[in-house]
């Protein structure tokens, strides 16, 4: 009885677990149960029954309420799909003036909006792309194809790669200094001589359109949310879901609304990139000291002046960190958008992976990684750059960078011109190195991969088989063996024990949505893969983080490594694992582990670092040794922060599991991938995306609530 009083929570948890296992054992697997259940795939099967809701026919297999909940939400994807279709093709037909045929034409409103938006985006992308690479489309947009035929000289020439490279180096120098400038120059030269110039510039033009637009919308909405509680409350759930929604689940509805290509990808990228911008704008504006606002008011600012001259400049750093986030999200979307036909590096990567040409994939991947690091470092340097005073500088000092850029433009043009004489019969390498005409190391890598397979195949295969048979299959079976009711009880019970009735209701709602969707089994598979990844990642991350923390230099080094790895688009991680482990579940899981270890390590180091120095000294003076200090002082205090790391680890792991569908999994991600190539897939893709987001949010809610309480208890923040 004493124990019961001393550790009430412990017994509550035990009680919960007992109920959970009792439910698991008492509910048998129904005989009709099969893992593959195809309600979502519109395949007729005589074993299926149907029900009709909202005029939509939903097919389902017989079920047992305790074992799996009925797919009551089965109509949702169909309904979303039909509604989208209706909106696009039938809703509100209106007369629109057609410039080409010089007559009025009837078109549904949404279709017209979508087409207008699409052509506007296409124009923007081509404008920038052709400034960089040359082309006709921009001029055509202002004139016509006939006019181009008559005036063959009218073509944007594009910039020689030397000028773009110099521009990047000078910008990097202005933002940060010599080091970054040299890095920028080297990256550009590398891209060029390895023949990746064209796709890189395509990707870059994508970012140059998507990032500024996302920035403007994000800033605007962030300001609106800061000013009005109502706007903030309306935005909050969307922001929350978008944070845990796998990026490429959003691509599916984009296909329906905007079609295939760069423009659709840009529009959808904005939807993904705007939320972090809103959050950071809000964070920055909230962090402006109240006295600064009062000082602005007392200086006689009206609301507009207060916002533009006081609040936004004071929140400059956070807002620019938002810009950094926007750029990185846009970049990773630019890569993933290859799935819906966006051109650029991602497209090449996808192509190479599809052909199993690991060498080519590796080259594209390396290029992507280098550009990601460069963009990240440059935008961070911008955020951390302090404003300088230019009042008393000479004309030369003030315009040094512009002058240098002007000079490099002239030199670049001269070089390109000289190039036409040097490379008379071949390509003008001083203007642009064409794709596949640069140096290629693909053969070398491919041979390397072959060699690895020839030499280590036996061992890799043995490891693979062992992992799958001994660890993964049993774990998967355990997850699938959980009756839906038992899972619900476990999740809701955990919610209640951690955060009371409110938390319990939230997680109940989220879990119920997944349980009632037709993909509960798939969600379980996703969860099992994510769980495996998270356990391994945390084990590695916490250990590595703790070890690195012992030395200041190692900690700083490790954080730097995390910074770099975090900038890579998740897709890139698939290349090396496919190289080593081929197309198996193991590959996906290893990619998950590598990717998700980043936040686990980072938050461990940051958490341990955040323990106040005074406490550290106090502990040392009370005579503890290093180990005692770690276990008695540092871990308990750093633990809340480390749990936030766990939260991030879960999100990262989920993202990677979903992307892993590309290698071949049989979870929610695989269905999203299928939906991408299905013309009726929009509803399915979106619903699946929401399911994944909800899995993330369940853990997010539980962990955050717990951390909040713990921090309050410890008096941190």
């Amino acid at each position: 009885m004493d124990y019961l009083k001393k550790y009430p929570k412990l017994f509550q948890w035990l009680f919960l677990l007992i109920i959970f296992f009792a439910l698991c054992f008492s509910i048998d697997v129904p005989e009709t149960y099969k893992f593959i259940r195809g309600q979502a795939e519109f395949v007729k099967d005589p074993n299926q029954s149907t029900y009709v809701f909202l005029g939509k026919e939903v097919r389902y297999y017989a079920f047992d309420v305790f074992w799996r909940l009925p797919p009551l939400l089965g109509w949702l994807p169909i309904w979303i799909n039909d509604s989208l279709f209706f909106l696009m093709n039938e809703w509100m037909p209106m007369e629109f003036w057609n410039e080409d045929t010089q007559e009025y034409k009837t078109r549904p409103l949404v279709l017209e909006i979508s087409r207008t938006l699409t052509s506007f985006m296409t124009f923007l992308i081509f404008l920038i792309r052709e400034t960089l690479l040359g082309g006709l489309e921009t001029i055509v947009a202002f004139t016509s194809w006939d006019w181009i035929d008559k005036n063959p000289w009218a073509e944007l020439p594009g910039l020689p790669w030397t000028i773009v490279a110099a521009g990047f180096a000078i910008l990097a120098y202005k933002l940060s200094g010599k080091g970054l400038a040299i890095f920028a120059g080297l990256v550009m030269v590398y891209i060029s001589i390895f023949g990746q110039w064209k796709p890189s510039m395509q990707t870059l033009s994508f970012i140059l359109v998507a990032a500024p637009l996302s920035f403007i919308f994000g800033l605007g909405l962030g300001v609106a949310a800061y000013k009005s509680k109502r706007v903030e409350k309306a935005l909050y759930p969307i922001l929350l879901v978008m944070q845990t929604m796998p990026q490429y689940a959003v691509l599916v509805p984009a296909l329906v609304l905007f079609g295939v290509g760069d423009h659709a990808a840009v529009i959808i990228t904005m939807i993904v990139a705007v939320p972090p911008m809103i959050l950071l704008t809000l964070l920055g504006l909230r962090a402006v000291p109240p006295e600064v606002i009062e000082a602005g008011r007392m200086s006689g600012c009206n609301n507009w002046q207060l916002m533009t001259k006081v609040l936004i400049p004071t929140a400059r750093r956070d807002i620019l960190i938002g810009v950094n986030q926007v750029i990185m999200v846009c970049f990773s979307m630019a890569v993933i958008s290859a799935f819906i036909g966006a051109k650029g590096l991602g497209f090449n990567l996808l192509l190479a992976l599809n052909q199993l040409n690991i060498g080519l994939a590796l080259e594209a991947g390396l290029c992507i990684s280098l550009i990601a690091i460069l963009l990240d470092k440059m935008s961070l340097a911008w955020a951390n750059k302090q404003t300088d005073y230019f009042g008393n500088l000479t004309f030369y000092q003030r315009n040094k960078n512009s002058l240098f850029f002007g000079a490099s433009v002239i030199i670049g043009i001269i070089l390109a011109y000289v190039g036409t004489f040097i490379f008379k019969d071949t390509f003008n390498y001083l203007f642009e190195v064409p794709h596949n005409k640069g140096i290629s190391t693909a053969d070398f890598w491919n041979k390397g991969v072959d060699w690895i397979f020839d030499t280590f195949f036996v061992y890799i295969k043995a490891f693979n088989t062992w992992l799958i048979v001994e660890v993964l299959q049993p774990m998967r079976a355990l997850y699938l063996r959980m009756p839906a009711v038992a899972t619900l009880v476990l999740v809701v019970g955990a919610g209640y024990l951690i955060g009371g009735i409110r938390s319990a209701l939230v997680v109940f709602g989220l879990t119920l949505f997944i349980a009632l969707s037709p993909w509960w089994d798939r969600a379980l598979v996703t969860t099992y893969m994510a769980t495996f990844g998270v356990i391994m990642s945390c084990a590695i991350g916490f250990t590595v983080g703790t070890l690195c923390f012992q030395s200041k230099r190692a900690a700083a080094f490790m954080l730097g490594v995390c910074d770099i790895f975090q900038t890579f688009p998740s897709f890139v991680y698939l290349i090396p694992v496919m190289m080593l482990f081929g197309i198996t579940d193991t590959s996906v899981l290893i990619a998950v582990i590598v990717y998700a270890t980043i936040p686990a390590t980072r938050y461990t180091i940051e958490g341990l670092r955040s323990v106040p120095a005074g406490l550290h000294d106090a502990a040392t003076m009370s005579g503890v040794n290093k180990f005692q200090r770690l276990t008695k002082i540092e871990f308990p205090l750093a633990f809340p922060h480390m749990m936030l790391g766990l939260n991030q680890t879960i999100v990262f792991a989920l993202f990677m599991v979903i992307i892993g569908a590309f290698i071949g999994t049989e979870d929610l991600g695989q269905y999203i991938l299928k939906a991408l190539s299905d013309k009726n897939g929009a509803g399915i893709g979106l619903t699946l995306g929401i399911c994944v987001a909800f899995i993330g949010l369940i853990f997010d809610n539980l962990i955050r609530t717990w951390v909040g309480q713990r921090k309050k208890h410890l008096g941190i923040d």
Partner: protein
Amino acid sequence: MSEPVIKCENVYKIFGANAEKMLQESNGNVDARTFQDNGCIVGVNNASFEVSKGEMLVVMGLSGSGKSTLLRCISRLTDATGGKIFIEGQDLLKLNNKELIDLRRNKMGMVFQSFALLPHKTVVENIAFPLQIKGIKTEDSISKAMDMVKLVGLDGRENYFPRELSGGQQQRVGIARSLAVEPDIWFLDEPFSALDPLIRKEMQDEFLRLQEKLQKTIMFITHDFDEALKLADRIAIMKDGIIEQLDTPAKIVLNPATEYVRKFTEEVPREKVLLIEDVMDTSITEDVGDLKVSKDEVIENVAEKILSQEKSVAVTDENNKVIGSINPTKIINTVFGGRKNSN
């Protein structure tokens, strides 16, 4: 006497959802406890006072006493829940947004405890900020701001950023900024509290020098009783939103109105605060020596001279006319007597 520059009549500031309704129901009898039980916090409780032109009113109170809230009501950074505030006869609470902005652009200046400088602007740009907000041309505002830079003694640092300045220098910028539009009314919210003691003393002297020259109408907030005594024409002592006593420093030290005020006055070195005028005998005795002292002298400065006399000393006014006398024993009593622990 002319119209007061600032006039408050029964000003209340109560935070909470039903503040206004509860205030109306209470008929002006606000009890902090009952309000707190209903989820309201009383910031300012029935404050009435006037500040006349060129006068410095120091509001003194410990943290949570409502002194900053009172100041923010008068600058209308927050709206008072009840009562009336007049600025030069204008009803502050009736001003619309545009009139309020006009008032702030032309009549008010404010200095903040944490300096509240704009981090992205240089010293001179910070000072020119209120002028530019007003719509004055950049060159004119900068040249005006340069005058202000000289006034607060920051010449040569005008192109520094706030992050490159020490606390004292930052507050000089804050002071210069608040004076840039040449306001009539000057609010200072614990301007020196964030500074080191030595810098604080230096800034107080500097502040007195400035006020000598500018003669602004000032409301000065502090939690430091010594600072209040040193600077104030009159002091208002606040506790739990209520003004406990509002009087000249000498009268507060000599006649603390409440037990709370007495606690502050106990440790005050009276010889540094009180003037001869405050302790002299107004009945003119014949039995005075040759020494004469001015009524405006601080006791500390003339105590040694007076104590060296056997007889009483004559006290004169500015026209050198004898208006009273003071006995050496009175000085001794004033300085050492009347304290809790003295025997």
